[in-house]
């Protein structure tokens, strides 16, 4: 199952996220986070996509995972935050 979302982060940027996931257990197989936001370093987005594989499409788990990746790899987002990413990802869940 693959689906997409378009989410304008309030006072922020436009996120376009595509998620491929297992419909039976809602586990992410692949994720593509695109949009007009900023992230420092930029390459961190690929790392974020890799690390989010095998995460369940659940608000609490996603938020915790995203926050821990941001902290561990010292990622600075501008125009989007952990909450915005979580919301955009969950919008892909049909």
């Amino acid at each position, binding site marked *: 199952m693959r689906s997409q979302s378009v989410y304008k982060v309030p006072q*922020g940027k436009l996120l376009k996220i595509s998620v491929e996931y297992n419909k039976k257990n809602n586990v992410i197989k692949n994720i593509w986070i695109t*949009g007009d936001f900023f992230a420092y370093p930029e390459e961190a987005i690929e790392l974020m996509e890799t690390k989010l594989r095998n995460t369940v499409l659940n608000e609490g788990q996603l938020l915790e995972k995203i926050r821990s990746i941001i902290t561990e790899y010292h990622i600075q987002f501008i125009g989007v935050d952990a909450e915005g990413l979580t919301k955009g990802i969950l919008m892909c869940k049909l």
Partner: protein
Amino acid sequence: MKEEWRLLQTGFDTAFSNMAIDRAILVENSKGKVPPTVRFYGWIPPAISLGYFQSVAEEIDINACKHLGVDYVRRITGGGAVFHDKELTYSIVISETHPAIPKNILQSYGRICNALLQGLKQLGIQGTYAPINDILVDGKKISGNAQTRKANTVLQHGTILLDVDVDTMFSLLKVPNEKIKDKLIRDVKQRVTSIEHIAGKRISFEEVAEALTVGFEKEFHIELVQGILTNEEKTLALQFEKECFSTTQWNHRR
């Protein structure tokens, strides 16, 4: 005595070369080989630059680009897609540790955009900085900016629209209305303006470059001294153009 920074006026070039030159300056500045640099340039043929995180398929009508002879290139900076046609593009490359540059990224956008605002003022145009990365005149966007920081070095580039053909722009860019959902504007086409529109007359690339030169000098209390790319920068730029910016692998990576 004022600190001297380098001013580069590299003229009009392809999208691939333009992005390669900015990256080459960043690399050489990070090695301490060249001083802080402000560059003005244009694009031939017209081109779209995509933000680092954007998807080509989501943002650009590739067939329309081919039909109109418009190139496209992915930037190393985030932000949105920009149609570079009748406009001036600037870039500034400077060490992250330079006292003129706030450590805080958002604040540094503001500082550099202030230089642009000072430049616009020279032309009699009153603009405002609209965080994160826009400059507005009469509530409409006249300039978009994007910054990266690599190897302790800041590269910010952005555009000043000299004139704008919104119909062509939006025939090439796929801009969903979600983009302006919270901006109280009904149509994305109403979101942009240009120097020609505001001034009511044509102002040349050269005049705008001159005004922005003064803007940077005033904002940073420096003197911009006309310079040229070093041989190392030229070699690196050719390498980046060939191995990165002109390749499908780079431009279609997302």
